[in-house]
């Protein structure tokens, strides 16, 4: 490759233009990098916060259900011991209903509500 050892004014101006463009673009890139890092922090924090809310809801639900099941079985034992068939049937129905009402099913409703709220919804009263 042969290199020129003398600079024309046009070469100098072109070089200055390239350097100026690079300096400007480097600054833009750094600004974008800062924005991306901040966005990442916000996004991850948001996901963690939502996860915590979700898990707290599920944990509380399961705790409450555990206690409800305990009470139901207590009553069931009483009903069986006293040969109260009607009471046993009613309690067992409650056990099945409680087991069927999974806390996960509520997630569907929450998700649907959120999706609805996110749309351009025209509220009518």
């Amino acid at each position: 490759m042969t290199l020129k050892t003398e600079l024309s004014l046009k070469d100098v101006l072109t070089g200055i233009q390239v350097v100026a463009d690079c300096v400007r673009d480097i600054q833009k890139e750094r600004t974008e990098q800062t924005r991306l890092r901040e966005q990442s922090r916000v996004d991850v924090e948001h996901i963690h916060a939502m996860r915590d809310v979700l898990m707290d809801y599920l944990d509380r639900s399961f705790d409450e259900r555990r206690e409800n099941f305990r009470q139901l079985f207590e009553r069931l034992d009483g009903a069986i011991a006293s040969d109260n068939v009607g009471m046993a049937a009613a309690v067992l129905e409650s056990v099945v209903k409680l087991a069927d009402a999974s806390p996960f099913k509520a997630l569907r409703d929450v998700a649907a509500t959120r999706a609805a709220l996110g749309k351009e919804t025209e509220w009518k009263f």
Partner: protein
Amino acid sequence: MPLPLIPAAFLLAGLIGYGAKKGYDGIDSMKDAKDIGEEAEARHQDAVRRLDGARGVLQQQLDALSARRDGIITTTFRRLFDFLEQLSQKARLEALERLGTVGVSREEVRLFAAQYLEAGGTLSGSVAAAVTGAGASALTTGLVTTFATAGTGAAMSGLSGAAANSALLAWLGGGSLASGGLGVAGGTVVLGGIAVAPAVAVVGFVLAHQGEKAKTKAIAYAEEVDAQVASIDAAIALLARACTRVEELSGVLGALDERAGRALDALWALGGRFDAEDDVHLARFATAMQLVKAQSELMRMPLFADGGDLNTQLETLLEQSRGLLQRGTS
């Protein structure tokens, strides 16, 4: 060397030095970009491994539940049918007729009889006719397919394999992450027409710019990975709660089975003296039947969401949670 050229030489040297420094910075940024990309990739792979582990734990729980279900069908259900078997036809029919008075319908009896048969149990013709009012072959048509189907073994045991290939992993596994383009930013620099010193300076700046661009791209990739990893962590936490749900159902089934076992013991203790007109005898029979009926209903219950097989339910659940975790809505 003529004096006026000395400042020019310094300027030239300065330009070369500065250009070289900027070029070095650019190469350094490209290296940073590569490192950022590789670290992000490693974080993602680690998250996917942890997710696989969590899914494995859930699979074990489901297998245990499946085993418990099979155990209940082949022991508790069988004992009840064996008891019916040993009753005379008259006593059997009277007992079944009077079940309605304690809230157990014939259709419900059909359902758990169907589960029993589905699990490989057998009923004698007279018992089958008594509990169903129809041929035993017609029983299976009434089966609810969710839990019962999973309980046959195929769907449950297939969960890991099927789920691994499902859309579940498409978002959990970060399938959409593009790995190309990282750390590649060199580009070509044309030297022609520009003298050495300014050329070094210009090339240095161009390299520095390319380096920053590569770094920006790598950071954007890492940002996407971090959000994916956070979502995967949430999915792992959700799978842990799915385990809680399985444990809960398994616990309730176990508690009912314990009581059903005692009720069946009391029933069998009557031996051949069962009298459907005797309130105590009938109460024992009704209690055993109600407990077994409740177990039967629990076994047909969807674990995580309505409808679909177990894998679809879990997928739906994870999809719902992903919807909740997403930032904002569009």
